[in-house]
């Protein structure tokens, strides 16, 4: 039973360099919380503050019902898995797992029990006599996980644990860590720069940028209702298309025209978008995800009105789906996700239909999302 609560946590390095600031986060018991963001966004710093590897400049951190700002890492009852595994190179796997227990003066039979159990769970029983050097990357990461679980801590901290693994193994370990979490039910905080990892693993995701939290939400909400252009662009692959547009009135409807000269014009009237009236005559950033764009000929629509004419620049056939890279008349680059069998050639001219309800609008200055749904 351990919640992790961060209240106004900040880490300021020498020379006023912000590690992270104004971090308010309530991680619930048994939750799998993922911190995600580009490098230098403060996610690792936040994790290291929770671990106690770095000193908190301001704010209050509690694990369970105890404030731990000034508590040494070993007293915080946490375990951490590092990106480079951080195994003790001179110790056999068995000793790597047992080290923390030995230091805590557990009785020998208890140590044996726990190490064997952890080894069984992680399927590394046959590796116990080896040294880390003799293990593959995936095996090392399992040992690192084992070292974390033998101690049965209140909180697991993961610092980009899969970054050093190859792509295939990463996907496999991703699932295993999730399974492990389901089995052990221990509060986990997981740092990654990989949005796919974040989306697939997190109960809740914390998106960070430049030391600040941008948004905290469950994966689907994050995907469908990003608070800002940054979050919208960071979550999702291929990323959301962002196009500068100009809003104007066209009688009852709105006219969305590409800001660049010669670009497309869309007549637009979905419900609940009346806020656009306030932006009439102004520029906005329109965001639309690749799967919300469709080629007219597959839409069963005949009329040529309200389509966006584009030219195919390249395609990335993935088998089950095809990412088509396109350019609008105004020069904006757009990616469309379509079925794998819908093949095109560079130079082909297409007419796109944007799913009007899925269009997001972002303020060009603050970059916040304007539409509510």
């Amino acid at each position, binding site marked *: 039973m351990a919640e992790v609560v961060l209240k106004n946590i900040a880490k300021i390095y020498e020379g006023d360099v912000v590690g992270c600031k104004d971090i308010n986060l309530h991680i619930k018991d048994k939750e799998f919380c993922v911190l995600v963001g580009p490098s230098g966004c403060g996610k690792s710093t936040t994790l290291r503050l929770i671990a106690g*590897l770095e000193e908190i400049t301001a704010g209050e951190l509690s694990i369970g019902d105890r404030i731990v700002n000034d508590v*040494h*890492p*070993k007293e915080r009852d946490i375990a951490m898995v*590092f990106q480079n595994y*951080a195994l*003790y190179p*001179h110790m056999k796997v068995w000793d790597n797992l047992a080290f923390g227990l030995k*230091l805590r003066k557990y009785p020998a039979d208890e140590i044996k029990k726990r190490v064997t159990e952890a080894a069984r769970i992680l399927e590394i029983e046959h590796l116990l006599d080896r040294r880390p050097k003799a293990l593959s990357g995936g095996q090392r990461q399992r040992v690192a996980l084992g070292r974390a679980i033998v101690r049965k801590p209140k909180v697991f901290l993961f610092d980009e644990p899969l970054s050093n693994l190859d792509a295939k193994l990463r996907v496999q370990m991703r699932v295993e860590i999730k399974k492990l979490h389901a089995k052990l039910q221990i509060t986990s905080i997981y740092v990654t720069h990989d949005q796919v990892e974040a989306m697939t693993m997190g109960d809740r995701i914390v998106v960070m940028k430049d030391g600040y939290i941008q948004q905290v939400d469950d994966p689907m909400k994050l995907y469908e209702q990003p608070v800002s252009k940054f979050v919208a662009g960071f979550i999702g692959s291929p990323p959301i298309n962002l196009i500068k547009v100009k809003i104007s009135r066209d009688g009852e409807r709105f006219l969305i025209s590409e800001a660049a000269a010669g670009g497309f014009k869309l007549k637009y009237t979905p419900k609940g978008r009346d806020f656009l009236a306030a932006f009439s005559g102004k520029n906005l950033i329109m965001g639309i995800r690749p799967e919300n764009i469709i080629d007219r000929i597959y839409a069963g629509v005949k009329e040529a009105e309200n389509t966006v004419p584009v030219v195919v620049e390249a395609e990335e056939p993935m088998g089950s789906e095809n990412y088509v890279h396109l350019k609008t008349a105004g020069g904006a680059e757009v990616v469309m996700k379509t079925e794998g069998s819908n093949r095109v050639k560079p130079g082909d001219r297409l007419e796109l239909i944007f799913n009007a309800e899925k269009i997001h609008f972002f303020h060009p200055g603050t970059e916040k999302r304007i539409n509510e749904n």
Partner: protein
Amino acid sequence: MKINSRKTHDNLTAYLFLAPFLVVFFVFLAYPVVYSLVLSLHKVSWTTNLYNVFSDMKYVGVENYIKLLHDSKFWWSLIVTGYYAVLTIPMTVFLGLILAILLNNKLPGVSLFRSAYFLPSVLDILVVGIIWTLIYSPHFGILPKILDSMGFRAFIDKGILANPRTALPGVAIAMVLRGAGFGMILFLSAIQNIPVSVYEAADIDGANAWQKLIFITIPLVKPIILFLVIMGTIGSLNAFTEIYSMTQGGPYVVEFMGGIQGATKVSGYYLFEKWETMNYGYAAAVSYILLVITLGISLVNAKVMRKKH
């Protein structure tokens, strides 16, 4: 055929590049090793031609070696050498490691201290020996003066090096302080190769600073310890310059196996004395025995350390 000729050509090129080293190796290392074995089976006779001593030597078989077995001065020199090794090696390793740990941080001025501690290693042993002889010398040497003012009056008249109990430790301290900087540099680079995250993992596992030193740092710098012990052993068996510059093997006051022995007469210096008095064959025999001991100790060392590691 073509492949073969290319291979030969490649090999030739390789040997050509190796040639400068090989020439030096054979002239100054391989040949002397073999020649001193030959020498150790010979003896300079009284009637030798002084202009052609080496080719005029007489073959005596293993006579030199048998004589050595009954030579109290030789046995004594081995004891002194062992004592010298015991005095210098653990101290050098310990001091080097302590300095490395202290200087492995980002405090201002650290690089100045690193260079300062390393600097003596660059100086010739002879120079260091002379400096310390002055520091140790009676009446005006700074150390006896300090000891005198603290109430230890025994050193002011004889200094440190004329006292049979303190002579060899005196030499050892001088050499430890000279050599520790070298060990420090090696330890520093080894410590800096240990990923920070390993220490962080140990932090989280619950290790305190002492436990991190014992369970993480020392095991991971073991190869350096092994290297320093082997180098120290070889250094002790070859020790000559420091004795030559500081004590010349004296003071001659110790009784052992019925003879008066020099308190600091290590094997290397004994060998030099034999050579200096034209006992070339005998000196070569001494050097061969030292070589065998060196090899033996190195092998045992390597094996023991590897097993623990």
